[in-house]
């Protein structure tokens, strides 16, 4: 029998190795897998490369992982925010490496990894500083930049409903990077707020098919109001 449900967050992240590339879902206040990043802090893995849209907000979640000194490099589109003080400090001190990627290229590079694509030509970023040194090509009169996939060892994502096979649904804009990160990582760990029996999710609305997910942990719902919120 397939059963991907784990008893605890600690057990779900127990074997994350030092030096791993870890994708962390979430955008703004929605879909941040803070329970999993907290478990990863307790687990102790170091020298991590993190892939996320941002570089941590406030003092919780990814920001806490940065503050704990566990992150060597971050791949993201928008590190600088009103409350990104932990990243800002590490960056200015030269203690963290930054790979800045336009948001759509970040998403497509993650998608490409999960889809087995070797590289792709994208118009985004052509002629800009973020395409410097990259291969370009003109196709049918339009200019493109060659971008490579981003693979990960681990993805930490927050979903809404799951079953023991790993099928997932999400809630509103908390979906954001979840489905593509789930496919791009060797080991995807998802939290859910509700577990149902197989068949309990209408097969027509499964968003992430279970084969992309290795582990699942049931958690309480907690409202996140951090996340770079700008009034």
């Amino acid at each position, binding site marked *: 029998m397939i059963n991907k449900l784990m008893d605890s967050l600690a057990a779900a992240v127990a074997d994350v190795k030092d030096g791993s590339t870890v994708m962390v879902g979430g955008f703004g206040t*929605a879909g941040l897998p803070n329970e999993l990043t907290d478990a990863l802090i307790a687990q102790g893995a170091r020298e991590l490369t993190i892939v996320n849209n941002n570089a941590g907000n406030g003092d919780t979640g990814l920001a806490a992982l940065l503050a704990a000194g566990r992150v060597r490099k971050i791949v993201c589109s*928008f590190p*600088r925010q009103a409350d990104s003080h932990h990243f800002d400090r590490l960056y200015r001190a030269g203690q963290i490496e930054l790979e800045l990627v336009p*948001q*759509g*290229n970040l998403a497509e590079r993650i998608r490409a990894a999960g889809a087995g694509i070797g590289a792709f030509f*994208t118009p985004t970023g052509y002629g800009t500083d973020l395409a410097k040194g990259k291969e370009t090509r003109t196709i049918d009169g339009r200019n493109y930049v060659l971008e490579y996939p981003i693979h990960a060892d681990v993805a930490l994502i927050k979903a809404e409903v799951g079953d023991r096979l790993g099928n997932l649904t999400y809630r509103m804009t908390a979906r954001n990077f979840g489905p593509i990160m789930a496919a791009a990582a060797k080991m995807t760990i998802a939290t859910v707020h509700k577990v149902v029996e197989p068949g309990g999710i209408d097969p027509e609305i499964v968003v992430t098919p279970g084969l992309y997910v290795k582990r699942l942990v049931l958690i309480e719902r907690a409202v996140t109001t951090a996340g770079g919120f700008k009034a």
Partner: protein
Amino acid sequence: MTARWTRDQMAARVAREIADGMVVNLGIGLPTLVANHLPADREVLLHSENGVLGMGPAPAPGQEDYDLINAGKQPVTLKAGGCFFHHADSFAMMRGGHLDLCVLGAFQVAANGDLANWHTGAPDAIPAVGGAMDLAIGAKNTWVMMEHVTKGGESKLVPALTYPVTGLACVSRVITDLAVIDLVNGAAKVIEIVEGLRFEELQARTAIALQR
């Protein structure tokens, strides 16, 4: 002080040209105001790059749901018929030319439509790009809303960018606090000037040659 449009008047000027049925992405900052001026008799679908189509206005105080936010990370609502999708789909909509219009803020726009809006180039600034480069080149039409001149009085319409590029030859219309200007094949054609400002006065504040 010379005549100029307020931020809300600029937003209303943009909203006036958004036709029934259009799919539109409004960038963070000034362009967000356009949503407040969309005429009630037109059905316009607002796209937000974090994965929403059919975005509605801000919720009433106390009704915020932090799983339902826009690209500026502010709580929003969803209109009937709206939907959610993941980030790769959202940017495919943009890059694939499925959005009719994107309205962005800018530091500078060049006469040929080059856009600078992501980075001042200051050496000590921490760079952040977000979806700016995708938005600039993705939509069928990219318009810019910005003040006509900097706080120091320098024209933000320039012969060539001095700030780092966001997208090349992508802006087709600029709405400033002084005028509406179309950029066509390297020429800047003035469509409208704020009442009380003469063409010659507008030209004097603009670093590129304007056509009437």
